[in-house]
């Protein structure tokens, strides 16, 4: 869990750390909207370049962001593959006759086994997965002898499909990078305070932005605590012989219960303690509160806002033309 960078704040000093959270939220929103307005790959690539430049300006290590993208990689790959297979517009670029025979099946099983074994030994699992996928493709296209199991079919890649898949992946990449920059450089408390201030006007229609912000900040604050508690409970039950890796299904069910019950009870205890602590420090819901750090706009925030508005304007102009 610790390797997931999305949603984590890492202390640092850069341009983005000094911006007002409201500015950052608005800017990220505007740039995201602009990204959705873009229509050609060239424009999107420029967008990606802009995102990278923003990372460089903010002195955020690109390596860290890429590492953080790892869990999303699977999602990206799936979108890519589905777009390629399902989109059937435009001219065909690749057209490959595919066969499925007895030998194919045999070779596929062999390839799978080799892949699983190598997976345990080799470090570069992603590269290995690609090699495996390429191997499957080669087997399907060139092993045309042996007893037929299914009718041969043609595998086509269409121009629009390739473009679309590339397009969607780059768009996702930009959006994820932007939101990572936002959460990476903004403390959760600042983020919720910014949200609260931004949603303040909605009070007129009966939306209580302060409670909403409080709920978000408390939930964010308690994610690591709850993880910690869960870990401790797991160790405590493991030392009573609850082995979570082996055993019958019935035993496993009992062991899961032995985790869940203390978890809920500790969560309830924690929430009651927190409520008492807040009350003893005179927290009254709905009262007007003062902050230690008031948010304020500086010239940097104005420049950043103008910059993001410019990007949006540019995107609209491109869209209209």
């Amino acid at each position: 869990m610790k390797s997931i960078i999305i949603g984590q704040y890492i202390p640092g000093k850069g341009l983005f750390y000094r911006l007002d959270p409201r500015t950052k939220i608005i800017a990220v929103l505007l740039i995201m909207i602009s990204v959705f307005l873009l229509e050609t790959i060239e424009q999107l690539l420029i967008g990606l370049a802009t995102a990278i430049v923003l990372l460089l300006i903010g002195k955020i290590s690109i390596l860290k962001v890429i590492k953080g993208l790892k869990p999303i990689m699977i999602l990206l790959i799936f979108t890519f593959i589905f777009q390629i297979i399902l989109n059937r517009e435009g001219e065909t670029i690749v057209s490959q006759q595919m066969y499925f025979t007895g030998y194919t099946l045999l070779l596929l099983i062999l390839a799978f086994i080799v892949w699983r074994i190598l997976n345990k030994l080799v470090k570069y699992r992603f590269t290995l997965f690609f090699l495996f996928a390429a191997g499957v493709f080669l087997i399907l296209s060139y092993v045309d002898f042996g007893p037929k199991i299914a009718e041969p079919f043609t595998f086509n890649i269409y121009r629009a499909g390739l473009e679309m898949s590339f397009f969607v992946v780059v768009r996702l990449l930009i959006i994820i990078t932007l939101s990572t920059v936002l959460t990476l450089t903004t403390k959760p408390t600042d983020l919720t305070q910014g949200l609260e201030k931004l949603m303040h006007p909605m009070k007129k229609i009966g939306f209580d932005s302060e409670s909403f912000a409080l709920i978000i900040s408390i939930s964010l604050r308690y994610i690591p605590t709850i993880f910690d508690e869960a870990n401790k409970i797991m160790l405590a039950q493991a030392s009573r012989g609850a082995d979570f890796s082996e055993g019958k299904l019935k035993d496993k069910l009992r062991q899961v219960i032995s985790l869940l019950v203390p978890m809920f009870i500790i969560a309830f205890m924690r929430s009651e303690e927190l409520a008492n602590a807040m009350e003893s420090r005179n927290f009254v819901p709905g009262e007007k509160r003062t902050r230690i750090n008031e948010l304020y706009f500086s010239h940097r925030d104005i420049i950043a806002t103008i910059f993001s508005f410019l990007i949006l304007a540019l995107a609209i102009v491109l869209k209209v033309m």
Partner: protein
Amino acid sequence: MGIRFNEVSYGYSSFAQGLYTAIKDINLEITEKNEFIALVGHTGSGKSTLAKHMNALIFPTSGTLEIFGHTITNKRNKKIKYNDIRKKVGLVFQFPEYQLFEETVEKDIMFGPMNFKITKEEAKKLAKQSLNLVGLDDSYLSRNPYNLSGGEKKRVSIAGILAMDPDILVLDEPTSGLDPAGKRILMDLFKNINETTGKTIVIITHDMDLVYQYFNRVLVMNDGHLVFDGKTEVLFQKEDLTDYHLDYPNTIKVLKYLNQELNLNMNVFQKTNAEALAEIKRAVRL
């Protein structure tokens, strides 16, 4: 053979701060019979991390660990049945809330033994025995563990481990949160188990009076290092325990103070109040 640490270090890693080494280069041997050991040290010195190694709940980052003939390294070994180790070395955590989950005390205590393939009837018998052992009567068997007082919960959680009949018992601060009388009852209980069954017992504690009175061997942790391993008497004869972030037992402190203020020459190393009183009487009469 019991537990042997060979140059064991353990580091907690976190994304923001990098690696934090909790224990460093620990060399230690605990035999499986007749030892009664106190593990002391300031908060954050690595006591609990050390204790978690003792039944292979966590694996050393470097170095090796031998527990009843199984060698534990930094990787999970498929050939080792870790559950066997946990049956042999019972670890009781500091807060009972982390392990109580059943609707009755009896069922909760039975959870441990049942995990080690024991029949229900036997487990029931064990539950009753171990509950009586920690000083609670049979009326507790049918009660809900969450409706007990803090001290009672603690005893039930200890009974839960005792019912597994481990060879070595490791307890993380079993006396914290108990009243003074409760502390003594529990310590007498552990001493009694140790003497009658010969099980080795390791107890983490902050109470120097208890350490001085009950234990013959003491381990001192300081900033992740094992800085002292030896007889209790030797530890408290040291001149300056503040280096270890420790304090002297009350009897030693009081007698030292009297020596200093009244210019007496008493032997300050008295374990109990009665012994201290006898020493004072002797000194005053002279």
